[in-house]
């Protein structure tokens, strides 16, 4: 153990511990800004500068390894002066119009300035105005707010393996963005939103779609319904201060009712539907020796990635729409007919952990009548949190409420869609039955659970060994895509989620997602599964009902028209990072 001193405390830590981490263990708070657990140490904001007695300059706590006998001072006059100066310098090159920023009260720079007691700035503003990039439906970039911490570059390049964002230029001319000043929509951005998730300020945000939702809710002509993703019920509580991993399904539904939605439905229902369609699709490919491996298609970030960079593998991707889109299609046909409402008057909102789904909803093929989108607006978990605040909803005081029929009855298989490996597990629970397997599949299929980048397993189903793989984060998806492209893939069925951890770690989830957050949210997801009476999609009575009443059969003509889609090659070239 290394023994040293921080201020007047004797501190011990294992070798190779940074001063920052050693201090944390002793509840000594050293302010940081560019530092983000799980990402590379940047050491570029210099906010965590501390004094080491005997050394000339100051050192950054995030990057300096504690050494035996060090005397570290975290609040000496030099340190306090440096810290303050650095934050003032940042603020002097920042659009500090906080009340006009969605990050207001959630902003790490704001918090830091408040913590340091900075309420004036001796430096004049040197901000050079640069236009925002809001040309795409999912994300908005505001260069005027960027503090050049580099977290977005790191996540896009190293975690996602995409590398669309780089620091362009030198010195104060540095602008972080895609090549040649292009908007994200012209670059290989998949809209996964991981950049928005880690940005400390309001430089990258999801596009705010709350206004159209309020308008629809207040429009007496509109019949407004909402669907919520599996990954929202284990995270929405965080928007009201809950720790990660609290299941708030009942309150979620109650809040949505209070907001004024006529019907509150569960995307889990169409997740179950997806399993039926996709399971049968896999079965057909196995039986007819069709194109294998089959790759899941419910993640729009993954679809964007495949269309942009691996168009060769599009034939392998399942033709199933995502649960979100299946839901929209069914509401505007089956539900509209059943309730005798003109589909043009139905306004479908979905609450998703995801930013890419804002793009997905606007894809031209996601419209059964060819005029109105099947899903009108997509809100992120964060935007729902905002709407609840606007309504003055006291989330903790809400009494639980249940989802509405016909799209409210769901299973544990659907609930785990939010987890990496969840779609795979859910699918196997049904595919095993379809393949005539009489042994019950393990309802806690650990081989595909957890945060390892690529997970693989072989399952014996009806005498057929089915080789499966699960990848999360696009860097890992790329590895599997490469194999499929080269014909060297050793799998029959692959699940891909573009966000680390799966949808529970989505780009639209509450801020502050780190490894532990994902673990807690995953744990809650599996708890939801275990609490459900029915845990296999094909055993969902409501699913049997909708096939009986309307869809006829899986992969049938109507199912094909409403629940399946096709993909486009996005560009002539595929650029590899």
């Amino acid at each position, binding site marked *: 153990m290394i023994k040293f001193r921080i201020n007047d405390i004797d501190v011990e830590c294992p070798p190779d511990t940074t001063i920052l981490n050693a201090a944390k263990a002793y509840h000594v708070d050293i302010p940081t800004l560019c530092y983000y657990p799980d990402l590379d140490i940047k*050491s570029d904001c210099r906010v965590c*500068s501390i004094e080491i007695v005997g050394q000339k300059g100051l050192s950054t706590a995030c990057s300096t390894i504690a050494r035996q006998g060090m005397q570290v001072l975290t609040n000496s006059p030099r340190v306090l002066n440096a810290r303050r100066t650095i934050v003032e310098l940042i603020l002097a090159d920042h659009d500090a119009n906080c009340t006009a920023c969605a990050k207001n009260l959630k902003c790490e720079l704001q918090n830091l300035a408040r913590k340091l007691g900075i309420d004036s700035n001796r430096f004049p503003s040197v901000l050079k105005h640069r236009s925002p990039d809001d040309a795409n439906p999912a994300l908005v970039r505001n260069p005027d707010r960027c503090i050049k911490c580099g977290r977005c570059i790191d996540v896009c390049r190293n975690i996602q393996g995409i590398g669309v964002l780089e620091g362009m230029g030198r*010195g*104060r001319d540095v602008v972080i963005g895609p090549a040649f000043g292009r908007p994200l929509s012209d670059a290989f951005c998949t809209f996964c939103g991981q950049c928005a998730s880690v940005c400390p300020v309001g430089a990258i945000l999801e596009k705010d779609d709350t206004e159209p939702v309020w308008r629809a809710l207040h429009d007496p002509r509109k019949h407004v319904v909402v669907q919520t993703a599996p990954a929202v019920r284990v995270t929405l509580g965080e928007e009201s201060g809950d720790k990660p991993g609290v299941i708030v399904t009942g309150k979620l539904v109650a809040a949505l009712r209070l907001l004024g939605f006529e019907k509150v439905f569960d995307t889990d229902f169409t997740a179950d539907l997806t399993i039926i369609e996709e399971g049968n699709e896999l079965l057909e490919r196995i039986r007819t020796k069709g194109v294998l491996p089959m790759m899941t298609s419910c993640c729009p970030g993954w679809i964007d990635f495949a269309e942009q960079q691996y168009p060769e593998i599009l034939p392998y991707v399942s033709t199933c729409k995502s649960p979100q889109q299946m839901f929209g299609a069914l509401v505007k046909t089956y539900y509209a007919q059943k309730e005798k409402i003109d589909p043009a008057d139905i306004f479908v909102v979905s609450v998703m952990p995801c930013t890419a789904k804002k793009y997905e909803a606007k894809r031209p093929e996601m419209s059964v009548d060819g005029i109105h989108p099947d899903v009108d607006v997509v809100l992120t978990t964060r935007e729902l949190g905002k709407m609840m605040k606007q309504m003055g909803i006291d989330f903790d005081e809400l009494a639980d409420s249940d989802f509405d029929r016909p799209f409210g009855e769901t299973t544990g298989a659907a609930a785990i869609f939010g987890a990496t490996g969840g779609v795979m597990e859910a699918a196997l629970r049904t595919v095993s039955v379809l393949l005539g397997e009489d042994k019950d599949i393990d309802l806690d299929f650990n081989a595909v659970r957890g945060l390892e980048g690529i997970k693989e397993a072989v399952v014996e189903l009806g005498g057929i060994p089915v080789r499966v793989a699960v990848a999360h984060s696009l860097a890992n998806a790329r590895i599997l895509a490469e194999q499929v492209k080269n014909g060297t893939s050793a799998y029959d069925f692959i699940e891909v989620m573009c966000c680390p951890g799966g949808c529970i770690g989505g780009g639209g989830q509450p801020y502050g997602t780190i490894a532990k957050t994902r673990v807690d949210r995953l744990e809650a997801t599996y708890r939801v599964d275990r609490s459900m009476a029915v845990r296999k999609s094909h055993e969902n009575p409501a699913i049997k009902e909708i096939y009986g009443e309307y869809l006829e059969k899986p992969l049938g003509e109507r199912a094909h028209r409403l629940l399946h889609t096709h993909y486009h090659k996005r560009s002539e070239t595929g650029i590899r990072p």
Partner: protein
Amino acid sequence: MSELRIVTKRCGQINPLSIDDFLAHEGYLALEKALAMTGPAVIDEVKTAYLRGRGGAGFPTATKMMSLAVESDPVKYVVCNGDEGEPGNFKDRYLMENDPHMILEGMAIVAHATGAKNGFLYIRGEYDLALKTMKWAVEQARKRGYLGRQILGTSFEFDVEVRSGAGSYVCGEEFALIESIEGKPGRTRVKPPFPTQKGIFGKPTSISNVETFANVPVILAMTGKEYAKIGTKSSTGTKLLCLSGNVRNRGVFEVPFGRSIRSVIDDLGGGAAGDRKIRMVQLGGACGPIIPPFMLDMTIDYERFEEFESKTGAGAIIVIDDRFDLFQILLRIVRFFAHESCGKCVPCREGNAQLELMIAKFIDRRATMADLVSLESLARVMHQTSLCGLGQTCPTSIIAALRYFREDFLDRIEYPGL
């Protein structure tokens, strides 16, 4: 006083494009001697000589060599930093254009001592002639067997790749240089790990200045013990000084450490040009202190310069006479750094912009005492908290000017009521 030309011995005496000329003037003899010694023995010789980095930082070369030698990775890189972008410095260009093989010889000796087989020579893109000359020298050395495999009939193998910069001063900083060699923007990296642990392509890398490498064959030839007798205790050997500005004789002069700046300016530089009065002298380069004439008796050695909280810099002595205004000079320096800052860290990126505004206030005579305090405070914070050497030393001229030309600042302050 006169020069002591041990490193620049051949410069101007041989045809730099002729390896035969080099060989006829004891070229590659030091390498031969080194190859007959073990690696540790060579490092020991350099240690006895107490050679210190000539690029400005003055880091003991033997220590750097040792850090590379102890790395077990079979792939290691010895890199020569020829990015010489420091305003006022041109000694590395001088060496590369006039005695290219000496540098290769130094690199080879260091490679042998540290177990490296690969080397890079990174030369700033503006040095067209130096690039041509060094590339030509590498070709010749390869043809004659001084680079490549089985050098001089031993099992030693070493080759050098010449790389060009593309217009970026910060690429003279070791990690920015590494990033540039890797084909990326020249932004520095977080330390640790250090280059000798993880450098180019993640491999152990040792980077030294052109002049440092040029000293290595000299040391091997005369022995470290003899070398250490030259100069001062803390600063052995000679230093290539670059005299420029308002002085009669501008150029590269090689003198032993320990001479005074004044003697260099007067005896070698011929004094101020046009019999003008010297107003100020900047030492080391744009990153160095600006001192008044009464301090010119200061001796040139690393210890003396430590007192400026900056190093000797690379050896520039920029003489500025009384036609020039201190603040216009400071403004030019700040603008240089604002333009060259890589932009990665806050104190340097944002600090230089604010310094520029503050200096402008002094130029316009709109400054207040609060501005004076702010200026000094900001300059010190930049010096203490910047991520790399550029940011840490860019305010040096201002810090020194505040100390030695304080009157000038006070004269520009707008006093209320006056």
